[in-house]
Structure formats: C-alpha cells, structure tokens
C-alpha cells in the first residue's frame, strides 16, 4: 500500500501501470527483477492483467454455479415455454436435483455475473482508450485472406512455435469473437430470461423467439466459452505454461 501510493507517476494507464509494477516488485521480487530495465517490452498492460484474472475468477464462479442451476432441470426446450410433459430439444444424462444446488447456484451466478460485467466494462473502456483492441487484436487486412488464414491453421496443426510478441491471426479472431460475440450473447440471453428486465425491454426475448429458447441458447453459448477455455489452457501448456502465466501476472515473459 505504501509503495503504491508513494509511487510518482511514470506514465502508464493513469499512472496505474507503474503503481501495480511496484506492488508486484514487492510481492514477487524474484519474478519481476527486470521490471525497471525492460519497461518498454511490457507484454500485457496492467489493466489487461488485472481484468484477466478478475475475469478468470468470475468465469469460474459462473461455470460452477451455472452447472449447479442446470442440475435442477437438465432439460432444454424451444420457444416460450416448456417442462416435464412437453417435448424437449435436449435431455442431458444428468439427475434432476431439486432444492439446494440451484439456490446457492443462483446466488453465486449473479454475484459472479456482476463481477464479470463490471470488470468487463473496465476492460472494454481501457481497451478503447489504450487502443489495445485496434493495436493488438484487430487483424490487418492482409491477414484476412484465405492464404494467410490457411497458413496460420497449418502452422498450428504442425505445432510450430508462433512468433512471440504479437498475436497471430487465429488468436486475434478468437479473442475478438470471445470478447465481442460470445460474452455479449451470454449477457443478452441471460437478460432474456429475466421477467423484470423483459418487462422493460421485451425485445430481449421476442427477438430470440421465447424464454426457453433464450435458456437453451444461453447453455450452448456457455459451452462455446468452455470450449474456448479448454483450448486456451491447452495452448498455454503447449507454449510454456509458467512463462505465459508469469507474463499475465507480471507483464513480462522470461528473456530468451
């Protein structure tokens, strides 16, 4: 706390960057020895790192609690309404567990959702202000050709080590899809299940075709995010787990 407040401003995002670096230096002295000399080669900005881990926490809470809620009624329908005795679109081979799990499940789900939404707001705002999106995630036009895409796919299939420092085209498209398509869709379908929110904005649910459709879509969109999570972890393991975790904690990968 002392060094955080006592740090003079050395640039960074509202001075936050340098303050966090100082805290890290005191928390992880061995990890961040090179902080002062290699400031320019920061791999992830402080806001990206902080929001990444808060988001990880929120995602974990949503996943666990989402599964708990699902266990109350592991069956999916299409349209406005559905229940036992009406046709379903998907029956998961899970037990119907009434009572407990959906109670704490909902409490944890909405707490995690609030953390995720507020944290996501900070991330989006800083991503625009610091040009994180336009610099690091938006693909160049030349990258969006079939040739470039297929080259990137092939290189992934051959498990070639990608160039360090920038994201390749598949990473860029994946991250953009997760940030600007999957998470917003998850929020939208979540809102569509709320009778109070829908009383103010009926279009949230009418556009989708019904409350049970929204619930079913919510489940499938969440599945895509779980798929992203699995691939994300697998890629990090392949590319050097501890080095990349360190980069996301301190901002710097090990110097080669």
């Amino acid at each position, binding site marked *: 706390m002392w060094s955080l407040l*006592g740090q003079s401003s050395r640039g960074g995002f509202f001075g936050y960057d340098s303050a966090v670096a100082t805290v890290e230096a005191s928390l992880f002295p061995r990890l961040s020895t090179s902080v002062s000399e290699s400031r320019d080669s920061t791999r992830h900005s402080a806001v990206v790192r902080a929001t990444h881990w808060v988001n990880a926490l929120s995602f974990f809470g949503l996943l666990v609690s989402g599964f708990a809620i699902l266990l109350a*009624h592991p069956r999916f329908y299409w349209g406005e309404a*559905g229940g036992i005795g009406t046709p379903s679109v998907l029956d998961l081979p899970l037990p119907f567990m009434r009572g407990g799990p959906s109670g704490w499940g909902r*409490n944890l789900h*909405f707490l995690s959702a609030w953390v995720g939404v507020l944290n996501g707001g900070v991330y989006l705002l800083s991503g625009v202000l610091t040009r994180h999106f336009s610099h690091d995630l938006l693909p160049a036009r030349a990258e969006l050709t079939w040739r470039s895409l297929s080259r990137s796919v092939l290189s992934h299939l051959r498990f070639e080590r990608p160039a360090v420092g920038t994201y390749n085209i598949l990473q860029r498209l994946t991250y953009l899809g997760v940030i600007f398509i999957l998470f917003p869709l998850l929020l939208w379908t979540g809102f569509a299940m709320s009778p*109070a*929110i829908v009383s103010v904005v009926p279009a949230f649910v009418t556009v989708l075709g019904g409350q049970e459709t929204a619930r079913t879509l919510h489940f499938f969109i969440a599945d895509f995010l779980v798929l992203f999570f699995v691939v994300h972890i697998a890629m990090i393991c392949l590319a050097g787990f501890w080095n990349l975790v360190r980069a996301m904690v301190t901002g710097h990968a090990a110097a080669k």
Partner: protein
Amino acid sequence: MSDLSSVKTAPHGAGIRTAPHGATRRKIITTGLAAAAGASGLAVATRLADRYGLIPPDHFGLYGVGKTLTYASQRILTTRHSMAREFNRSDISKVCPVNGDPPEDESFQRLLAGGFKDWRLKIDGLVARPASFSLQDLKQFPARSHITHQACEEGWSFIAECVGVPLSYVLNRVGVLPEAKYVFFFSFGPKQKWGSLDMFDAWHPQTLLAYGMNGQEIPLRHGAPVRVRVPRQLGFKSIKYLSRIVVTDTVTGFGKGLGSSSPERGFSWYGGI
C-alpha cells in the same frame, strides 16, 4: 471509519521515507482525499439506497452484494408501469407443470372438503380497516385477467391465463397506511411457505390474487383456492394456498427476518432475476 484513518495516515509516513518531492506529496494528499471521498461516497450511496428502498431484506454476506446490485438496478430500471409480456389465448400451454404438494394441514383439508366455502382471507397489519374476505367476496370485486409466462427458478415454464382481483384493489379497500413497506403472504400449515413483496410490486396492476386459471377454478396443486400472481418475478414469488396477508413496515419478526421463507432455504428474496 477506522479503516479510513489508517489509509490516510499510512501514505504520509511512506511519502517522507521514499520521495519527499512536492509532486509526490501532492499525489499522496490527492490519493488520501480520493480515498476519503470514495468511502464517504459509498456511505452516502448506502443511505440513499436504503431511503429509496433499493436494498433487499436478504442483503447479508458476500452473496448479498450481488443480490443488492441486482435488486437496486432492476428497481431503477423497471417503472411501476413496465408490464410483464401478455400473450394470446392460442399461446396458452397445454401442459402446466407444477411443483410441491398441497398443505397436509388439517384446517386446510377441512376447507378443501367443504369446497372452500368457509375459507377466509385475513388482511391486517398497517391498514386502516383490517378485513376478512370470503372467496365469494373476492369474486365480486372487479376482476382482471392476464395471459402471462410463469417460469420456475428451476428452468421450466408455462403460459397460463389467470383471473383474480388486483392486489391493489384489495389494498385500497383496507386502506394501506403510508408507512407500509412490505406486503406479507402466508400459506396454510406448519411447513407453510410465506413471502413478501415490496410496495412497488404490491401496487403493480398485474399483481393478482388469482382464483381462476385457464377458464376454471384454480387447480388444487396450483394453489387453490387463491394464490398470488406476480408475473414480473419467478414462480416462487407467487405464494399458493393463501390464508393471510399482513402489511408491515419491517421484515423483522417474520421468520429469520429475511423477508420470506425462500432465503431461509438458500434462495433469494427477490425473484425478478
């Protein structure tokens, strides 16, 4: 308040130790002031939220943070006249699933056997004219019906037509006192479910004391003879097998003081989701 003072004093010591520049000192003071402003801002926000009824009765603990954010933001977003969606007759579900069994309580079984002729709905608490209405009384009051979606918190749902007397009509008839904050609903029996609504949802025109469903008397397992219908919240807020209504200005004294029986079983008090 003690937290605040430690935040304010610590950086002063640190500032002297590390870098006694004017710029640093200014930053320390700014930070201290910002921290103080933030803390008092939060205190003011809490006061205001409480005054405008934006804090739910079950706001305790870590989950309470999420519950309060949800309740407060939905109370700010929803107006008194934002209506739950209404549907056409052709949308009514052919199957209306239901949870839970009717009360085994002897007094309820006796009323059921007598076709609810002796059933009475008592209304008291913060009202000018406490009353007791029979089923026939309720049916003679002006009726309203709506075809709405009812979702269980478990995930299943149905669309049904409900007929009943608007709760607001009954509240006006007994004369709710201005200090009223909650309307409590009690069901039958020792294991009875009970719950409450804030005045916002209690006065809402779609909130009914429903005695009919899909063109018939309300079926037993759907809460005969009368159930509450609150279409802007999940199904568990629509208390079945109604026996008594109490208007109050506090949630203390009712169970564990969390506003309804659902938070005592791990669910939230507010069901707007």
